[in-house]
Each structure stands twice: as structure tokens, then as C-alpha cells.
């Protein structure tokens, strides 16, 4: 298993009041994303556990793009990866931030 950890300062705090949420499932080609509103204001922390090694740059690009687009300030995001493709990762991240904004 490989662990990756990224820290960002987002443009702003993600709207909504939901404290925690989970999306996706650890299945082949899919992933599970746990979102917790525990970080200070604009800070965002992303932790990834993946069985596939050597995709650090791809993860960095996909997660960076997500942070840029949805500005998930205040979230700690934890990922259990089942070998998801970059487009699936991005889709799930967007679903996750939408879930956290939904209440």
C-alpha cells in the first residue's frame, strides 16, 4: 500500500453545515471518500491509501484540480482507493463536496 498526503489552502471555506459524509465504495476501479469538516477555515487535507504505486503525480494533478474547482476549505478528505481511474476519482471528489454542501 502507498500513502499520499496533500495539504492545501483553498480559496474559501466550503459552504454547508454537514459535518461528515462518505461516498463511493472500495471496489475494483472505484474508491471510497470520507469527508470530515474538521480543518480550520480554508485549510484542506487529503490523505490517500492506494494499492497502486507510482501514480503520485497523477493523484497530485487530479486532487489539485478538484481543490481549485470546488474550494473544499475546512475538509479533511480520506480516500481508500480500489484502483480507480483519474476520471472516477475526480467524479467521486466532486460528488463528495456536493454531499457536504447539501446540508
Amino acid at each position, binding site marked *: *500500500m502507498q500513502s499520499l498526503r496533500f495539504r492545501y489552502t483553498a480559496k474559501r471555506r466550503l459552504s454547508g453545515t454537514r459535518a*461528515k*459524509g*462518505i*461516498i463511493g*465504495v*472500495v*471496489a475494483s476501479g*472505484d474508491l*471510497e471518500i*470520507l469527508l*470530515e469538516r474538521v480543518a480550520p477555515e480554508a485549510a484542506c487535507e487529503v490523505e490517500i*491509501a*492506494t*494499492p497502486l504505486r507510482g501514480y503520485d503525480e497523477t493523484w497530485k494533478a487530479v486532487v489539485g484540480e478538484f481543490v481549485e474547482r470546488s474550494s473544499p476549505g475546512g475538509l479533511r478528505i*480520506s480516500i*481508500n*482507493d*480500489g484502483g480507480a481511474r483519474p476520471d472516477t476519482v475526480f467524479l467521486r471528489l466532486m460528488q463528495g463536496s456536493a*454531499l457536504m454542501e*447539501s446540508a
Partner: protein
Amino acid sequence: MQAIATGARASWSQARARERLAGLLDLNSFTEFLDPTERVQSPHLHLFDLPSAFDDGVIVGRGKLDGKDVLVAAQEGQFMGGTFAEVSGAKLIGLVRAARDHRSLPQTVLLLMDSGGVRLQEANAGELAVAELMRAIVEARRAGVAVIALVGGKAGAFGGAGLTAATCSRIAISAKGRIGVSGPEVIETNKGVEEFDASNKALVWATDGGKTRRLLGGADAFAEDSIEGFRAAAKMLLTKIPAFDLKMMQAEQERLVERQTLFATCNDAVSMWRILGIKESEAIRDMDTGTFAALADSIRGANHDAR
């Protein structure tokens, strides 16, 4: 932790475990025990370079079904085949034992089963979990707890999950639900293709599938493959919980002996359906839920208080 609610007509077999729970229970009534933020994960999978899940593929908690308090456990069939392992097993066992020991907790447990059996990477813990869960269910039933299995997930209820289902007070199943011990591929590998041709899908579904299980009395309600369908079946079964005593066990023994004699010459499910008096036995496969459920309700032997 609540999932995004899906439509009530959404397929049960296609839904994730959290979606099933969200739709099965009364709106926003679910409270999870050991939710994913507590990160009670498998301590073993990383040794095999395999990813863990934050809930280890089992979601436990309490909620309301049509206003009635219930305890619930749901297996996520898409994570490691919904398998019994150290953590996932302990969550199931803990829930059933809690119902057994605490009158103040809901005295109804709904098990949303979706499992291929024991997780091979944690086989010893998984086998123990199955044995302990079966014992816990039997003890809980003796203490007056109703345990209802809902079987309609893609992984079915095989191996230890099939055994566990058989210990429950009542079982609801859909056409896509399957209950068995050894799966078709396992039987073919061990006994040869003449014994069971796992590539013959019609044969496999007729043997392990929900319709045959219901007709033979291996399940007590036939549900539509939708979240609303299982909600309706669970509500109905709540009103029909059998006694669990020596008299009932003896009746079950007699019923099984009778069944063995009745179907002694059969070599497939269709020939069993014929003996049950179903004239157009081939039509069973394509029959819609309502028609089939009514037919099953009329078959003697499909309805009993045993098990």
C-alpha cells in the same frame, strides 16, 4: 452516516449498502454505530497490499421501520464480496448480542445480507465470526428477539452468509437474491460439470435463485427487486415472527424429512416445481413479482413456521 437517498423504485441489487439502509428505514431515522469516521478497519488487509474500507464493509446501527424501532446491519457486497472477517464479523455479532442482552434496545434485527461468505485473507477470524454470529442469532431468538434476513444483493448469501440466513426468524428474498453454501463454480470444480454446470445460467438461477428458495420454503417472503419492495416485505414479516421452541424445531425436522422424500427423484429445480403442482413450470422464470408471490403463497410447504 446517511447516504444520498435514492428513489424507492431503485433496484435493491444495484444499490450500495448505505443506499439500501437509507431507503429501507423511515426517512432520516438511521443512527450508525461505529461510523466510518471512527475508522474501525481491517488490521490485516494492508499485509496483503489490499485496500481497507472505513467501515470494513458492514454498516450497523438503529433506526425505524414504519415507526417501529429496529437494529440493522448491512453488508456491502461490492467491498471484498461482503465477506465475514475480523472487524466486519465483530460488528454483526456485537449488534445481535446487544439485542439479546439489552431489553431496552429494539428487539428486532434486520440483516441486509450481501456476502460471498468468509474473507479468504482473514479466514480464521471469518469462520469464527460466522459460528459466533449463528450462535448469537439463536440465543437472541431464544430471548425473544426477531431476526429478519433480507437477501437480494449481487453477492447473494453464500458460504457462512447462507448458513447465517438459515438461522434467522424469517427471510425475504428477491428473484435476484441467491442463498447457498457452496457457490456453483465451487461445486463444479469439486464434483465435476455433470454435477453442476456453473456456465448454465438458467440452471444456476433456477437452483440458487430466489424463486426456488421461496417455493421450497427456504424463504418466507418474495420481494420485488427494489428498495420499496424489500421495505414492504420486511414490514410484512415483522407481523409474522414464529415461536422458537422445541415444538417448532421438531416440526422443522419433520418438514425437512418430508421434503427429502418428496423430491428424492428430482435432478433439477424445474422437476421439483412440477412435483409442487406447478403446471407451467417453465413460466416461473419469467413470471412477474406479484404473480409469483401469490403463487408461492398458495404452495403448501412454502409457508411454515419452522426455521
